């Protein structure tokens, strides 16, 4: 691992499963001069820690993550989110670290003949007046309305994951949410990672009591990115009052969106349709949909309500 990060320099990129990076290289969007293959570093283990949490190596393949007995039994929502993404073939190759760092699928970002503030700062954002039907309704800026495409990241955001990174300057831990940034004035940076930092692991606290779910809505039955998705954990202690709720949304923002406002709104109240609707409305008050993605507000609202209702029934 020390060799991997020591070898980093300008023009270097880390290669995990390649399912996003090779795609971007072939599009001419990513133009590394040098690749460092990190998929075979000793980062492929999933281990339980003494507090009952789990540590997932960054090189663990998505398919192996979803199939791991500890994940499948103790964090089933994470497994479900992973299995909702991509295809069997892609899941066999994609790594946990690479999944977190995958780039937006905004069509203008992927097309080097188009202006794009993320890819070419200052060139403009043609999505704002163009094809944005599948782009952001929350947290976007005048520079960028892209969304983060990962299902796994939405689940990890709801589960309070922590991302362990290392570089030649040392190691640190970044909480989720917090790894990914809002675009603000500089959409060229998707995350808070500094150049050269390598994700080595993702750790999860012990699972919350309660039931959990991942629900994804897309334009066809499989193998498509989310229009909107919801990751939720709900603990009612067996009664009708909500003791704890974790909620994250996918497909709505530049980051996996942790719905803190909704969580606060349902804490301590009876879990029913009305309270869930009020919580969704509170979260989505900040929504600023674009001309052609207004439907996402209703979709997010309905999904939040339906998912939480399912978890109390």
């Amino acid at each position, binding site marked *: 691992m020390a060799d991997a990060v020591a070898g980093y320099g300008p023009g270097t990129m880390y290669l995990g499963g390649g399912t996003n990076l090779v795609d971007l290289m072939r599009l*001419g969007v990513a133009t590394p001069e040098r690749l460092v293959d990190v998929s075979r570093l000793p980062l492929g283990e999933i281990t339980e820690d003494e507090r009952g949490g789990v540590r997932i190596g960054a090189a663990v393949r998505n398919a192996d993550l979803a199939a791991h007995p500890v994940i499948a039994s103790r964090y089933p929502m994470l497994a479900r989110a992973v299995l909702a993404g991509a295809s069997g073939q892609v899941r066999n190759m994609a790594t946990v670290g690479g999944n977190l760092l995958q780039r937006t*699928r905004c*069509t*203008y970002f992927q*097309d080097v*003949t*188009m202006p794009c503030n993320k890819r070419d700062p200052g060139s403009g954002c*043609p999505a704002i*007046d*163009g*094809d944005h*039907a599948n782009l952001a309704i929350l947290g976007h800026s005048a520079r960028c309305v892209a969304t983060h495409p990962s299902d796994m990241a939405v689940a990890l955001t709801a589960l309070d994951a922590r991302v362990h990174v290392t570089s030649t300057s040392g190691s640190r831990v970044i909480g989720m949410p917090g790894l990914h940034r809002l675009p603000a004035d500089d959409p060229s940076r998707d995350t808070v990672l500094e150049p050269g930092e390598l994700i080595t692991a993702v750790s999860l606290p012990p699972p919350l009591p309660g039931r959990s779910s991942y629900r994804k*809505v897309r*334009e*066809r*039955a*499989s*193998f*498509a*990115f989310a*229009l909107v998705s919801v990751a939720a954990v709900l603990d009612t202690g067996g009664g009708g009052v909500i003791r704890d709720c974790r909620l994250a949304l996918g497909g709505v923002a530049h980051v996996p969106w942790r719905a803190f406002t909704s969580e606060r709104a349902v804490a301590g109240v009876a879990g029913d349709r009305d309270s869930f*609707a009020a919580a969704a409305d509170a979260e989505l008050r900040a929504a600023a949909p674009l001309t*052609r*993605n*207004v*439907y996402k507000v*209703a*979709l997010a*609202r*309905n*999904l939040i*309500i*339906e998912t939480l209702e399912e978890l109390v029934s």
Partner: protein
Amino acid sequence: MNRVEGIDKVTGRAKYAGESGEAAYVFAVQSAVPSGAVSAMDTAAAREMPGVLAVLTCVDPPVLGSAEDAELALFQTREIAFHGQLVGAVVADTLENARAAAAAVRVDYAATAHDVGLRADHPGRYTPDKVNPGLPADLSYGDIEAGLAAAAVSIDVTYTTPTLHNNPMEPHAALAAWDDEGHLTVADSTQGPSADRDTIATVLGLRPDQVRVISPHVGGGFGSKGTTRPPAILAALAARAAGRPVKAVFTRQQMFQLTGYRTPTIQRLRLGAGQDGKLTAVAHAVTEQTAIRTEFAEQTATCARVMYATPALSTTHRLVRLNVPAPSWMRAPGECPGMYALESAMDELAVAAGIDPIELRARNDPATEPESGKPFSSRHLVECLREGARRFGWAGRDPRPAVRATGPWLSGTGVAASTYPARRQPSSASVTAEGDKLVVRIAAADIGTGARTALTRIAAECLDVPTGQVQLELGDSSLPDAWLAGGSMGTASWGSAVAAACADFHKNGTRGTADTTEEVAADSGGFARHAFGAQFAEVLVHPGTGEVRVPRLLGVFAAGRIIDQTLARSQFIGGMTMGLGMALMEETVVDAAQGGFVHRDLAQYHVPTCADVQDIEAMWLDEQDPHLNPMGSKGIGEIGIVGTAAAIGNAVWHATGQRIRDLPITPAKILSRSDHE
């Protein structure tokens, strides 16, 4: 009987274009602007890169024999007519080197204002001389306004369909090699080796006998490989420039801009009927697009000339020239988008009139072809509807919308009619006895239809031998000339030639040949020849999320004699699957400001996945029709897609009460129409 080439396909032994030999690679350079001109091209850096053998550009154009076909007159002009137009190409020893060098070509443009927006009121609308294939753009009779005014029930609705792309799984590809005598061999992915050879020869200024096209296996076409495409010409020019064989394989992205697509349509339907449901007027007005340099007029409203009895009919087509690539054939050109609108409008009329949608069609079933007065060679649309109704469980259907639910899912059913013309074209074939085999030769194409197998059956039946004794050779322009696989005319055209050649073989004993030009010419006049069918759909719609699922599709068809049951069922179901995609998910989005397609790959252009397809079944009636061809068959490759989208859209209305008149029916559209809680 299993497909003749089955073992080759499941073992990976079947070779497609571009897989047949060693070759250098040519990679295209495309226009980054939608309109204007190339002012300069700097290829110096590209030429210095590793492995580069040659560079082609529009500022120093290669010599062609003919520049008449704008789609194939590669590099002959600096004028840019659409985003993605070919402006150059780099030939190199490997794909990676060719691609990298192509990216290093610098192109300067003088861009001009572009227009890619199709609208019904576009000031540039004009009436084409003809619509494909040589039909009148406008055809009317009776008094529409009087018919509508006299109607007890009338509707005036506009339906729209988006840009749709064929997207065969095999990208367009060609491998070209010149010999020392200036003869060209092209392994091309084509739906018609004979026509492809003739076109390539014309464009390059060669005689047809100097060109050979080889195409034993084609990875789908659906119309996009029916006319010669740039890879064949590009590979030939590159091979000439590099002095060695070269292959051109389009990327999926390049296919979107350079291999054709179905034009978007704006269709206004005005229908009027009496209390008894009998139509008093049918007006079908279509607006579509075409390219700046090439005119392509999809025959979208011609189905209304065939379907229903009406005292007044108006069918019109208007085109708008835009800075778009040239539209071209996509499965069931004309009938596919046209019947979507007509059959959706008929459903709306049925609802407005309070008449069952099957009943409405039965009451308006014409005795003769409405536009011409000709008798149908055979027509069993009503029988298809009735049989389908029986099998689908239509009797007792509650016609009210939005009253059935299973949990959060609303359910509904819909029906639509289906039609496609049944024609054939001249072809030639030969039969010779060689060893213990009877070898049948014809330059037909098997693009997945099972033509090899169907023709083997036809020959075996005509020769009265087991199918194993017949060896069918196709996919090579050096074989007897044949029509292309298109217009659902393949089996009818080739089967006729094979049957005639077999008859000749019976007379001669060791060899038979046939050319059906005269026989086919006698087809015209007399009868209206069409296949018909009925499409049924059951849908589930989640009103909170807008998701639509299709648990059941049923197609019942009347298409003459079915040559091979397995092949036919696969064709019908394949077409219906494509119709499901058209209904719910397929769309190439156009960015008006940027002037091009923003969707250019299979992650953005959604075709149905395996999970989208549940119960799809197809069946047919036993239809006898002596007025078609020696086999008594009608083409079936395209009718499967016709009417499917309407049946699904009608079912969505039945489930939700929402009439969505703009394809595809996506969650966004369902949610935008529902009441928010």
